[in-house]
Each structure stands twice: as C-alpha cells, then as structure tokens.
C-alpha cells in the first residue's frame, strides 16, 4: 500500500486496525503444509483458466503468488480470508441494493486471491483500450457536432436519433478539447481460446474505480509479502492523472478552482464508492440541491455564502442533470446547468450526452468506424453483436434467437427476459431498432477462495481509463475483477451476490510509488478554516447531534424507570416514576402512557410497554428507531466523519436490532442493552469531541446535542415540579441519576437530595456539563462563531438564547433555597417552562438561517 493510496482515509485508524490484528493473532505466520492448495482445484472443461495451462502447469505470472500461497497452506490462507472480510467490514466498504430498504449498506464481497495478468498481455490490452476510448470519444464529438458519420452512412442514423441517450439540448455545445469521455470503463472477458474482448462499454458514469482502489487497500494488507514480491503496479498514478486532467478543465485557472463530485445521494448503489473517491481525490461530494446557478455560473451553497464551482465530476446520469433542459421530472440536478455548460462556465466530466455510445448497438459499427476515423484496424474486439436495426443483422438474429442473448439496444424501460420467443420475434419485427443480440459469453475462470478451498470461478474484468488532458488516455494498471457466484457464470453482478478481486499487474522490477498528497510543485497554501460546509450537511450534522442526544436521554430515562420498577408493588412506584415517564411521553417515546392507568395494575404489560419503547422498530420514537435515524444521518455525512464514528453508530443499531427473543427478554437484559447503548453513545460523543476539528460540522453537531439535552432536561425538571412527590428524595435521586450527577451531588452535599440543591446543580450550575445553563452557554458560544447573514441585525436565534440566559441568571437563589409549598407555581417552574417554549423556536431559527432548503417547483409544460 503506497502512501498515495492511503490518502484521506483515516490513517491512524488504519494502522490501528492493522496492529490490532497483528497483536491479536501473533501476526501472519508462514507455514508449509503437505497438502497443496491446488490439489482440489479443477479447471473447467469449456473455459479458459487464468491460473492453469491446459497441461496443468501454473502460468508464469501466477507462479510467484502461488509459491507464497502454497507456503501459507490452507489454514493460514483461511485466516487471511477472515482478515479480508474483517478489513472490508472495518473500512465500511459497502454497496446498496436498489429497492430493498433493508438491503442498504451491504458489505462488499472481496475474494482474497488477486486476479493476475501478465505484463506483456496487459500492454496489448492497454493499446487496445486506449484506441477504443479514443474512438468512442471521436464518435461522440461527431454525433454532438457535425454528424458527418450519419450523413456519410458510417453510422446508422437510427442509432443516434432513435436513442433516448442522444441529448438534443447538448448538441452543438463546445466541449473543451473535444473530450467527452474524461473517464471510460470497459468490461472485458476472455474467451475459451484465450483472447480478450469487450463485453460492454461504460461511458455514462464509469463506476468501479473506487471499489478497485478499496480492493487494493485490503488485498495489499492481507497479502503484503506477495504484493511486495510481485512488484505490483500501483493505482495512485491513475488517480493522479485523473486529478490533473480535471484540474486542467477548470475554466477559471485560479488556485482555488473547485472540482466537486455530484452524487444522486446515499441511496445510490455505489454511494460508498462516491464518498470514498471524493475523499481520496480531495473533492467535495455534493447533491444537486447543494448547487445553484447564478449569472450562468454554478455555485455551491455553503454556510458562508455561494462559492463558485468549476468542474463537476458527475455520478448522476446526464439526462438528470438539469430539470429545465433535460428530463423534466428530475430532482437530482441543477436548474440552468446546461446553459452554464453551454456558456463554458463549468465543465462536466463526463460531458453531458456521453451515455450515447454506451449502447451495445454501437459495437457492431466500431470496426468500420475505427478504420474510418483512426485509420487503424480495431485492436480489441467486442463480443459478437448484431443490431436489429440493420436488415441482415435482424435476419440473422431472428434465425438464431435460441442461441443469442437479446438485449435492449438503448437504455429503456422494457424487460426482455420475460418475453416468450414468439412474442420477442414480434417485438423485434415491429421495432427492430430497439434490440441487439449478442453471442453468449463464455467467461474464463480464476482461482477463488470458497468454503476453505480454491475453486475455479467465472470472472470478468472492469478496467478504467482517464483522459490525460493531452488528447490521450491513461489506463489504470489494475482493475475490478468480478466473480460470478455460480459456476456457469451467467450473472456477474454485485447486486446478485457476486464477489470481486483485486487485479495485479506484476512488474519485473520495483515499481514507482506515487502519492496524491503532493499533487504539484506549487507551495501549499495553508488553510485553517472549513467555511465551505454545504448547508445540507450542516443540517444533517445538527440532526445527528440531536438524535445522538435523544438516544442518550431516552436510554437514561428508560434505564432509570426499569431499575425503579418493582413488579411486586407496581402501583406504589407510580408517583416516583411519573416524572420520568411523563418526560418520555412528552418527547414521544411513550405516547399516551398517562392515559393508560391499567398498565399500573399489570406489571407484565407495563414492562412490555417499556421494552417496546426500546426495541420496537415499528414504534414511532422508540430507541430502536432513533438509532436507525442516527445511522441514516451518519450515512448522509459519511464523507465528513471518521470510520470510527460510523462504526460506533452501526454497533448501537446492531445491538438494538438483535434483542433476545421476546419471551426471555427480561427487564435486566434490557438494562444491559441500555448500558451498552450508553457506552456506544459515549464513544460517539467522545470521538466527536476529541477527533473533529472545531469547524462548522462539529459546531452544528454540538449545537444539536446541546439543544436536545436542554430540551429533555427541562422537560424532566418541569415534570418533577408538577409531581405531588416533587420533594421526595427518591424521585430527586432518580433525576440525579438520569442527569449523571449523583456523584457530584454527594461530593457536595452530605444529605438527602432536596429540590434547591438538585435544581441548583442541574439547572443553574454552569460548571456541570449536564446542566441547562451549561447547554445554553455553549449554544451562545457556538452562535458567536457562526457566519452572520447580515452583520447589522442580531440573528433571531441569538436573541432567543440571550433571553434564556437572562431568565436563568435571574433565578433567585434565595427563592430557590426557601421551602415552597407549591413548586408548580413557583418562579423556578415558570423559568423552566419559558425555556421549554423557547428551545423549539431556537431550532426553527437555526433551520431558517442556515439550512433553508427551498422546494423546487416548475411551471409551464405549458398551456394550450
């Protein structure tokens, strides 16, 4: 692992996890075993095997790797395979499955055995792929420009005009350097005779480079000796080229030219990769709503105002990028973007419209187009493809329907798999342009670790190219090898449970190590501010803070209630528990509990009610739901938080999601879970406090936390004063426990708790980090550091806070100290209630000043 590949992933955290596994498992031990790993490895009869020649010999480029694997033996390899899974989990490498709310964030599948390609073979692939990228780019430039290829019949017009991916509003836009494809990916597979060919082209959004990088990170760590000894080519150079290429595109060649990555959001299947790459490349990950067009330039909406954007690396399909000129029902894009691109004020990578040549129908035209446009024979063949829009091809397809794989020619809504052959025939004949047919692909097989042995599994390889900014392309020396889950290799799809591999291109000599940390020779401009937090993220951090504290307060209240609940005399406990339960009722965890007096007569039902407030995922406001919200919010800010914070929150959710079966769930078990939850939250808050820089993200997180804490605390203090047992020391003990101030209290007062002493400690003592006054003072400090909207007027939030502060400071210690017969009507109670009223207003004021998401609406798909 080079430094370069390490950049921006939390390095402390990585070396820590490495040392953990090293100390825990006494390191990786090489041990020879008598039984060869390959004794049970079987070449499949019909396919090319990547590891073994037909005569059973190992291919030379795999020899060194397998020499070392054989030295390990099966036991050691199994241990490394475990480490592989653990790394994947610890680095939070995941992907999402569409349409499956429970399937969000599935762990990425990585096979520990890398896919190795001989360097001389790789060089041939490289020239073929560069030629292909150059060719596809030229085709795009013509289709969006002169359209000579159509007029001179090199390209069938239907392929362009009939394709939804031909974006007419983008025709004629001047593209810098005529580079449409800044990134290009291709899926390759190897036929039984050993030749490589292209199965599909990726020009719209070539995904997977980030997963290739993540695979490299893990694989180089679990097989460090083999990685070193094979002199594996590093991936960093590819990403460095990508950075340079994008930087050159900026219309504003200023030092602060800004590149952002545009994401469709956390539900996208490759969101992990987007966040990972954005971090690695040093780009901000933004959603369409974070951007706005003003004066025909694109700006990022940040807390401190609008900041210009120069280059957009998009992970949003091009037709979704501008609801004004492209698909009209998209909310993912930025209104006015196309016009800003047209004016040359912002550059999109890949260019809008690039999805056009992704259609498999183009494949059958490529050999001719290559001759015509580049004056060369095509070097890397495509899988045999017939586009039914051509008469001869159509006839061939209709005659061979059983043998061929029929696919939609264009990105489209219909599915073919379900159609009967006769139905398919009819549809092809009615609208032939919409169909292509391809030869069935026979994938090669590679050694894969499955169930503690090596088996030959079908693989395909996705490779990645980036425009070098000088009219050429640079191939990533490696790629994303994907392994089919079934041995017949029908499907290769992470969505269907496939796995993946790192891809190694070994070198005879040590390879150059590059780093992204020093992108150029210019001096680094030191920056201490982080004023560029998008408002949307500020909003998410604020709520992350609120929900984390909500989970904390809820756990504490429920724990105290469970500990105090005695089934033997349920009714007797009622007055003492009432303020705790009332707080949970008001805050939404135990809705309507005060209207269910029957619960007090039935200890089991009462306990069930409390347990539901902890574990029930369907119940609004339950701790479980709060934990899910927390995880959701953490995902939204994932590119801004450390892996540790993420992991802590996942664990909290996991724990609540897997309670013991209901019948054996005891109150005691639940208290245990609550204790663990509180430890997890303490870890989260500790990480936030100790590890986040005091920039805006942290500030909004902490503001959310303070506000929520004050809210729960005031609710509890108010409910207590309303209780008939307000002065009961047992009740006051419970408050001290919830507020985690029992120890402080006992160190100060050698007596039973009284209202004046307790309220002084938890309401007015600004040295107590759990007191109300402490929260308010922290909030005031935060407000003073926030960017001001207008300097001449005090912000509404600040005014609210100052009122709270002066109310608290006016509480008369003497009044507090003198016994009161009617606490409910006291000035103290009035103060608490006033703060309770003010806090939600404060939250609204913060939202109005800093988050302000205006809904987008549209007019005028016209009027007749």
């Amino acid at each position, binding site marked *: 692992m080079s430094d370069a590949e390490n950049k921006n992933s939390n390095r402390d955290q990585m070396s820590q996890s490495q040392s953990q596994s090293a100390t825990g498992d006494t390191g990786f031990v090489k041990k020879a075993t008598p039984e060869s790993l390959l004794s049970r490895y079987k070449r499949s009869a019909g396919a090319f095997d990547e590891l073994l020649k037909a005569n059973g010999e190992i291919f030379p480029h795999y020899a060194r790797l397998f020499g070392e694997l054989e030295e390990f033996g099966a036991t050691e390899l199994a241990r490394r395979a475990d480490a592989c899974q653990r790394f994947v989990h610890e680095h939070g490498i995941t992907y999402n499955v569409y349409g499956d709310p429970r399937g969000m964030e599935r762990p990425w599948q990585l096979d520990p055995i890398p896919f190795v390609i001989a360097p001389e073979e790789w060089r041939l692939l490289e020239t073929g792929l560069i030629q292909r990228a150059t060719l596809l780019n030229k085709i795009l430039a013509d289709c969006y420009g002169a359209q000579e290829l*159509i007029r001179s019949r090199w390209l069938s017009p*239907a392929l362009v005009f009939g394709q939804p991916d031909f974006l007419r509003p983008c025709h004629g836009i001047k593209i810098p350097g005529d580079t449409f494809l800044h990134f290009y990916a291709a899926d390759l597979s190897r036929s039984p005779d050993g030749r490589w060919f292209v199965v599909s082209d990726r020009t719209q959004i070539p995904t997977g480079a980030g997963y290739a990088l993540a695979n490299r990170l893990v694989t180089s760590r679990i097989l460090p000796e083999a990685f070193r000894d094979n002199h594996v080519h590093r991936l960093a150079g590819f990403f460095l080229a990508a950075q340079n290429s994008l930087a050159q595109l900026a219309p504003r060649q200023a030092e602060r030219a800004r590149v952002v990555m545009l994401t469709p959001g956390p539900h996208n299947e490759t969101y992990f990769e987007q966040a990972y790459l954005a971090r690695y490349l040093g780009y901000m990950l933004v959603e369409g709503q974070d951007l*706005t067009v003003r004066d025909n330039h694109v700006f990022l909406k940040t807390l401190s105002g609008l900041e210009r954007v120069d280059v957009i690396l998009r992970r949003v399909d091009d037709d979704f990028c501008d609801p*004004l000129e492209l698909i009209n029902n998209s909310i993912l894009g930025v209104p*006015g973007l196309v016009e800003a691109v047209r004016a040359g004020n912002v550059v999109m990578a890949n260019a809008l419209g690039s999805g056009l040549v992704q259609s498999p129908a183009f494949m059958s035209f490529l050999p001719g187009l290559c001759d015509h446009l580049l004056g060369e024979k095509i070097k890397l063949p495509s899988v045999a493809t017939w586009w039914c*829009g051509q008469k001869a091809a159509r006839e061939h397809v209709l005659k061979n329907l059983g043998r061929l794989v029929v696919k939609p020619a264009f990105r489209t809504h219909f599915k073919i798999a379900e159609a009967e052959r006769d139905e398919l025939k009819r549809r092809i004949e009615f609208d032939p342009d919409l169909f292509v047919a391809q030869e069935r692909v026979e994938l090669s097989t590679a050694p894969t670790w499955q169930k503690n042995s090596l088996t030959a599994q079908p693989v395909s390889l996705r490779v990645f190219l980036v425009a070098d900014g000088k009219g050429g392309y640079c191939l990533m020396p490696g790629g994303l090898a994907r392994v089919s889950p079934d041995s017949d290799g029908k499907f290769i799809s992470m969505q269907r449970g496939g796995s993946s591999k790192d891809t190694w291109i070994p070198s005879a000599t040590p390879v150059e190590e590059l780093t992204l940390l020093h992108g150029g020779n210019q001096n680094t401009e030191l920056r201490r501010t982080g004023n560029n937090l998008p408002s949307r993220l500020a909003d998410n951090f604020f709520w992350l803070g609120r929900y984390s504290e909500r989970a904390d307060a809820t756990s504490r209240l429920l724990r105290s209630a469970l500990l105090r609940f005695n089934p033997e005399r349920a009714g007797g406990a009622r007055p003492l528990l009432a303020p705790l339960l009332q707080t949970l009722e008001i805050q939404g965890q135990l809705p309507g509990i005060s209207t269910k007096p029957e619960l007090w007569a039935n200890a089991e039902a009462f306990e069930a009610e409390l347990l539901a407030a902890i574990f029930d995922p369907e119940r609004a406001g339950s701790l479980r739901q709060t934990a899910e919200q927390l995880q959701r919010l953490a995902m939204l800010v994932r590119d801004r938080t450390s892996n540790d914070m993420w992991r802590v929150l996942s664990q909290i959710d996991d724990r609540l999601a897997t309670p013991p079966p209901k019948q054996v769930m005891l109150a005691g078990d639940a208290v245990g879970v609550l204790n663990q939850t509180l430890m997890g939250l303490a870890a989260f808050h500790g990480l936030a406090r100790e590890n986040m820089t005091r920039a805006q993200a942290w500030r909004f997180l902490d503001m959310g936390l303070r506000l929520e804490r004050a809210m729960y605390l005031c609710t509890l203090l108010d409910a207590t004063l309303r209780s008939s047992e307000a002065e009961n020391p047992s009740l006051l003990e419970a408050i001290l426990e919830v507020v985690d101030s029992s120890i402080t209290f006992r160190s100060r007062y050698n007596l039973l708790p009284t209202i004046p002493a307790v309220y002084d400690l938890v309401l007015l003592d600004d040295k107590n980090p759990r007191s109300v006054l402490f929260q308010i003072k922290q909030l005031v400090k935060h407000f003073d550091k926030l960017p001001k909207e207008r300097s001449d007027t005090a912000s509404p939030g600040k005014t609210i806070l100052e009122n709270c502060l002066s109310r608290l400071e006016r509480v008369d210690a003497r009044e507090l100290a003198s016994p009161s017969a009617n606490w409910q009507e006291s000035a103290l109670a009035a103060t608490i209630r006033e703060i309770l009223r003010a806090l939600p207003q404060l939250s609204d004021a913060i939202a109005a000043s800093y988050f302000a998401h205006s809904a*987008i*609406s549209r007019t005028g798909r016209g*009027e*007749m």
Partner: protein
Amino acid sequence: MNYHITHRTLYEYAAPVSVSHHVARLEPLVTATQSRESFSLQIFPEPALRKARTDYFGNQLCFFAIQEIHSKLEIITSSRVTVSPKNSSQNESTAPWESVAEMFRDPVSPEVVDAYQFVFDSPQVRASQELAEYARESFGKDTPLLVGARDLTRRIFEDFKFDPRATNVATPLEEVWVKRRGVCQDFAHFGIACLRSLGLPARYVSGYLRTHPPAGKPRLVGADASHAWFRIFCPDTGWVDFDPTNNVQPAEEHIIVAYGRDYGDVSPVAGILTGGGAHEVKVSVDVEPLE
C-alpha cells in the same frame, strides 16, 4: 395574410420565488411560407440574464434567469408575421405511403436524414401496433401519402371530442386514446403517434390560429389561444401540415412558432423555480389580422 400577434403569460406564485430559470419558445419561425417582420419579448421582472439562441430543431428560444425575489412573472410577446399561401400540391398525386415509409427504413438515404429524426418515439409519443392498426384504416394499400394523412386528420376530428377538462399537459397519450377526448395538443400527439407507428416521420407544431368571430359580432381581443397541430414529411413537397382539431389543412390562418418531436421540445414557456409553491397561470393570445 399579415398578422399582429400578442401573447401574454402571467404566472402568480403562492410563495415568493428567489431564483428561477426559464426557457421560452415564443418567437414565430421564418419558413418558406412565413416571414417575420418584427418580434419583441418583454419579461417582468427584468431577468438578470437573458440569451437568445437557436435550438436543435431550428426554433428561436430565449433562456432567461430571474434572480430577485418575485411573486409574479409576466411575459409579453408582440409579433408581426406574414403568412403566404402554400403551393398546394394535390394530395392525390403524392406517392403511395408505403414507398415513403420504405425510404425511412435502414439504410436511409442522406437526403432524408433530417426528416428521419421524426420517425422515432419521443418522450411523449410512443408508437404501437394498436395505433398502427388505427392508422391503417386511412392508409390502405397504395394510398397516396397525403390522402391518407388528410383522412387520418378527419377521423381524429370525428372520433375524438374536444374537452379541455379531460386532459392536462401531463396526460399520457394512452389515456387520451382510451377516453377519446382531449385538446389540440393531444390530437396532434395522437396523429403523430399514428404516423410514426406506420414508420412515417411526423412533427409537432406549436403556433397560433386565427379565429373568426360569429357572423355580425366584433372580434374579441385576447380570446385566441396557442394552438398545435402536426406535419408529415412528403418527399415531393417537404413538410405538409394537418390540423386534426379543426379538420383542416392549414393554409393562411395558422402561424408557426416552433416545431419538434412532441410538445416537450417546444413548450412555449418552461421554468424551474426555487420557492414558489402552487402557481396560477393566465394566458391571453390575440391574433389580429391586418389589412
């Protein structure tokens, strides 16, 4: 025939709009039979940015952005246009429709590549075998192309009921077909879908129609409306217009503003607003014939 056309569009928003971006296609086209003496486009409030250009189909469009907070938007155009009579070829003497459809099967000859764009499905118009069957009643074996088109126009006029309440701009064509009701936009789309289902190129036209006051009554100012119809590509004469809403072949009383594959390519005013909430739109069109 000379016309002075005034077209006002007023949007009133329930909530203030902080930024809006719009594309307007309101400027009458210049064609072989239509000239444009003058055109003006006024926008209130004054846009921060305004750019005129020609779109992919050759229409004049105006892109504009308003960056001040506003709660209404008014767009007023004023045009002077002269429409001359089309050299009316005889529908009967046009080529059989099958031979025209054959020209648009691969490989397509370069001369008709531009027209070829209008054979394909577009976002709001999908060809289907069902519509092909409907169209074949007008396009029997060897029917001259424009005879078939004229008959299709008549049948749409007779089979469909004009009903502004039955559809809106978002109503899919399939629903128009089931209800047999709609407005000019729906009938134009339907005609286009039928023609494309036969493999014939057809375009959507947006524009204006001169209206005649009832006999003896004065012409009402502002009572006219935007209008839409379709045109079909005829190899002998180029594009020929048909208006299924009125069952006519447009001559001197149809003024062309823009054409495209369907309504989505040519909507007169489209906009995306930040804020705004619900909105109301008032449109008034006045087509005044000049002597």
